[in-house]
């Protein structure tokens, strides 16, 4: 397992509104894929003290829906979306949207590559800050972004 790096890395591309994150895992792509596409998500979609996933259900096939719910700063929330590509154990693409929020969904792409001693998992979370230009960029949109920002941000109090 000497080739496996010890830390996850996540960087933001401000211009593209995209997060790219990666981690090397000392296990097989099949095992990693299972953790991405099952209720196991409640054990790792977390940001301690900020964002806590309690439930996850999903119909893991192209066009199938998923739904995650939990508590963020004492408030319940629901995230949901649709599976766009399901190609185990290599690739999983899904849309990602806060239930009831206006605006278009973002997209999460998981790429799994076998490496010496395990699997490299890369996550692209894109179209995060690209609201529909044709829609009215009004108060609802703004407050939705601010709420999401509060839910996800570690810096808000």
């Amino acid at each position, binding site marked *: 397992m000497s080739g496996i790096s010890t*830390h*996850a*890395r*996540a*960087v*933001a591309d*401000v*211009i*593209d*509104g995209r*997060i790219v*994150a*990666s*981690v*090397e*895992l*000392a*296990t097989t792509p099949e*095992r*990693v894929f299972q*953790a991405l596409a099952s209720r*196991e998500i409640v*054990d*790792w*979609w*977390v*940001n*301690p003290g*900020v*964002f806590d996933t309690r439930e996850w259900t999903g119909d893991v096939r192209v066009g199938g829906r998923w739904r995650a719910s939990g508590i963020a700063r004492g408030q319940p929330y629901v995230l949901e979306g649709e599976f766009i590509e399901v190609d185990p154990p290599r690739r999983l693409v899904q849309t990602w949207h806060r239930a009831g929020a206006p605006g278009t969904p973002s997209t999460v792409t998981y790429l799994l590559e076998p490496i010496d001693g395990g699997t490299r*998992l890369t*996550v692209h*979370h894109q179209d*995060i*800050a*690209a*609201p529909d*230009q044709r829609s009215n*960029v009004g108060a609802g*949109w*703004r407050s939705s*972004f*601010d709420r*999401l*920002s509060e*839910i*996800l*941000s*570690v*810096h808000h109090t």
Partner: protein
Amino acid sequence: MSRIEAKTDAFRAIADPTRRAILDRLRAGPANAGTLAADFRTSRPAVSRHLRVLREARLVVDTQIGRERLYVVNPVPLQNVAGWLEGYRAFWQASLTKLKRNLEAK
């Protein structure tokens, strides 16, 4: 303009791929509208329209140097966008760290 309006305009301004490309180009150094039009093989009026949106969102500022008007990236509104993205970045950083701990636990 309030802080929230400036932030919303910055999001809207960078939602357009050509404007993102113009910003990327200006991050490499100042340029005038004619140079940008040539770089992006588009008309001067089209570039001027994009520059106006970017200027209104305060993503670029222009300075007159002699007979030339140069456009420069203003990083401040991008920091608002970066602040918004930081929550997502932190989420994935924390989640992948937890995933690694779970999958490698013996």
